[in-house]
């Protein structure tokens, strides 16, 4: 990517991007032992698209997601979510931002074990304290296919079902963006595909913006766009592609 291209992107990001990163850097530690996890990453996440972030382990993709989601603070650079630069936000504003703009899907589901599926799903709404749109709750539960599992505790659900609960929980507040961190990493491939279908579907039917971090080429076959990270920088970008194309690109990137 040339300097010129970066410039253009920045301008663009101000106009129509949902989430933008501008020259993000993240360094852990200091001096000789410093690890540069991200070395100046800029990107845009487009509305109602599933954006995949690929990369081998240690490429910085998790760090990127943590920064985009406001879980961690960059050493340099800026993250803008729905027009708000989150770098300067305090804890209270970050909490508000999470309630309104961000949904999370975790590799290990991170459901609250003592709550039922439905209680887990509506928890973000209760935390935010707003009025619960019952119809929407029904729609989401219906869509993720948990209508007959809503009173079950996480321990009574299969891995796939648990991840469906997590997806529903992420969708329930209609956030600006959902971050999915290796959503299929803890599932077998069949179940994984079902989960990816579900993510794809929520983009199609609800117009949900999703950023998915993964190292599985198959996952990125479901994305509208895939960014490849290596050694802390975005090195390649693909539009809608097959798993095969993603794999090849991945291999090329890893060799480079």
């Amino acid at each position: 990517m040339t300097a010129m291209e970066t410039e253009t992107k920045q301008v663009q990001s101000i106009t129509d991007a949902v989430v933008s990163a501008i020259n993000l850097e993240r360094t852990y530690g200091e001096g000789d032992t410093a690890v540069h996890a991200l070395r100046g990453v800029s990107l845009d996440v487009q509305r109602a698209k599933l954006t995949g972030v690929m990369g081998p382990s240690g490429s910085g993709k998790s760090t990127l997601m943590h920064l985009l989601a406001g879980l961690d603070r960059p050493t340099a650079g800026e993250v803008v979510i729905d027009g708000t630069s989150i770098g300067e936000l305090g804890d209270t504003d970050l909490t508000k931002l999470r309630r309104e703009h961000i949904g999370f899907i975790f590799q290990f589901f991170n459901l609250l074990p003592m709550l039922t599926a439905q209680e887990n799903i509506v928890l973000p709404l209760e935390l935010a304290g707003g009025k619960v749109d019952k119809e929407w709750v029904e729609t989401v539960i219906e869509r993720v296919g948990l209508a007959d599992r809503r009173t079950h505790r996480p321990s009574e659900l299969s891995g796939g079902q648990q991840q469906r609960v997590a997806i529903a929980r992420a969708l329930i507040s209609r956030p600006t963006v959902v971050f999915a961190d290796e959503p299929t990493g803890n599932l077998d491939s069949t179940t994984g595909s079902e989960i990816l279908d579900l993510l794809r579907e929520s983009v199609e039917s609800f117009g949900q913006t999703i950023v998915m971090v993964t190292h599985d080429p198959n996952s990125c076959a479901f994305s509208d766009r895939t960014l490849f990270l290596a050694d802390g920088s975005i090195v390649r970008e693909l539009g809608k592609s097959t798993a095969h194309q993603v794999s090849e690109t991945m291999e090329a990137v890893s060799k480079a």
Partner: protein
Amino acid sequence: MIRVAVRGLLGRKLRAILTALAIVLGVALVSGTLVLTDSIDRAFDRIFTDIRSGSSAVISGKAAFDLTEGSGATEPALEQSLLQQVRALPDVEEAEGSVDGEAQIIGKDGKAIVNGGAPNLGFSIANGDSRFNPLVLVQGDWPGNGDVVVDKATADDQGLQLGQKVGVQALGPVEYLRLSGIVDFKSVSIGGATLAGFDLPTAQSIFDKEGKLDEIAVAAKPGVSDQQLAAEIRKTLPPNTQVQTAAQQAKTDASDTDEFISFLRTFFLAFGGIALFVGAFVIANSLSITIAQRTRELATLRTIGASRRQVLGSLIVESLIVGVVASVVGLFLGLGLARLLFWLFDLAGFTLPNTGLLLTTRTIVIALLVGIIVTLFASLRPAIRATRVPPIAAVREGAELPESRWARFRTPGAILVTAIGFVAIVYGLFGSGLGTAEILISMGAGAVLVFIGVALFASKLVPMLATFLGWPSAKVGGVSGELARSNAKRNPQRTASTAAALMIGLALVTLVAVLGQGIRSTFTAAVDDLFVSDYAITAQNNFSPIPVSAAEAAEKANGVESVASVRTGEALVYGNPTFVTAVTPNTADAVALEWKDGSQAVFSELGANGAFVDDGFADDHNLQVGSPIAIETPAGKKLDLTVKGIFEPPSGGSPFGQVTFSSETFDANFPDPQNLYSFVTMSGGVTPANTEALDAALADFPNAKAQTRDEFKDNQIGPLNNILNILYVLLALSIIVSLFGIVNTLVLTVFERTRELGMLRAIGMTRRQVRRMIRYESVITALIGATLGIILGVVLAGLLVARIDFIDFSVPVGQLVVFAIAAILVGIIAAIFPARRAARLNPLEALQYE
């Protein structure tokens, strides 16, 4: 969010219960104390109201100042002629006089029936059918001349039959009277008190009050109020008498028991407070561990939109629920505890009056509030810490809580808190011009701060202590012991907090033991120095005054060379009610004092107006030999005495009051003279024959006993041992609370190390080795607590001893070793359940455990 809290608790029932237990005992002690004292209070109130139920007003003798209960001093008596005057008053319907005093009933075994500290009431019943009589006849008749009636409990207990002779001892030798009837109070139980009723002339003779009355009960004519009647009587009263309405009199009657009850209440509540304080440590620690284990869950909550305040709120709600449940359970356990205490008092021969348990709204409110507030307060720090769990911990394995901004101030802070605590204790002890309340508050607050400070600082000491104290475990326990030792060091903060709870209990137990030992050694030394005669005569209970006639009887025994007696009473000296004593002239034979000014001859030279004082009293009031000293008797009589000697009391305490004069002066001016003790010198010293002769001479005084010097020491120290034992039992409660704390920590630790335990099992650790590992860790933790506690206890005791003159600093090493062994036992017991749980883990499942 409340749902999250409630469900969270339900999902962790075991932890919640273990945490709650820490507070249940403390609340139970608080509620039990309140229930017990309220119940006794009501029972006594009923007795005192019952006694006065037939009266409108009561006339009694009035001491020149308020007398202290138990000092042996009594109010002056009334002239019997007053009764006729009162009866003649226009508004008086009826009036009746009575005398009363201590009268012991002699039991089957020939000894006086004394139930612990309960009184042995003797009194006249002028007319059994009169309205003034609060008793009912259960059997037989009211007493005539030379008769006695006794209470039903005593009669049943002793198998007394109507018509038989019953021994009664008041001021003189035992008198045998005919049992004419058996009586009881109308509605209440009187606890361990015994009743002996006589007709008026008999009572006057027994109590040496011929022609006198102690009280006149008066009933008003219809339409005359009690106040009116009292006012009317008051105008006609001679000096040193007073009249009160029946209600006021009941209150006066109750004032001594009220004081006793309020002391009992404060005493037990203090231990409830200690148990709650220890419980607070346990709760804070359990919650800290739980929160550490729930980091991911809390972080997830943050990522899906929970604010810090909501996280805090959910944890507060959790502890609120634990607090409420624990308090309610504690409240009801307190009812059981009150019942148990009644039973224990009964067992100790100290039967309390009982009209059933009384659970007041006040008890409910206090028990619940105390339990809930302590729980909430203890939860605050860990809960606030939990709000610092960063959202990123939801995705990052093994994320640690960020250090608090204040973390670097922790060690200096701990040292500062400890230092402030010690300063407060020292101020309380040595500060000048402090009231009792201020001293206690200053010392109590200081002790609390010291405990908190040391607990905070202890995490720094844990690695060293664990290495040292865990050495035997590593030697004996092989790999299990080695692992146990490193596990104890793994999270010093956690080990320190767990041990700190035990530390508090052990510090207090050690304090009590060291002080007890100090008192014992100075007292023994004092007796050895002072006591130069062969035998001492005291009451069976070692402290009640005994009739002077007992000493007179002893004089007649074969081989007696001299009997020196010490009378006891109270007088107003320099405006203060003061404990005074009087001695017979031959006291020099029995008591060897160290004279600062004067000699042993002072005893015999006191005469009618001589006195001697201790040097402390002399310094306080600038007295020298020759100085005048004025005292006022309870009857209001002023005596002008002259100081003839000043002595230095041994540190173990003086056998005398602050002012001592001759028994001759005492007997002439004080009502009902009685001896505190008599000392007997016999030819040939202590011999079986002499003992026998003395015992025979005292046969008519079953409440008096003759003892050798060693027996006297043991008997005088006996009550101290009882008090120490009560203190140990009460402190054991807080040690039990800390035991729960260890259980709790271990259970949570086992839970946390599930995977690791699975791994250890997988690579070949046997169940027995797992159990041993947990057990040793528990014992090491307990020993850390014991070490810190014992050191702290000795230091605190040292401070107290430095202030209190009559206690030596003497460390009971044997006892401290016993405490350390007890701590090891606590560790072993605490480990039983967690070790079993750890051993039961299936290695395969444990490894998969997430």
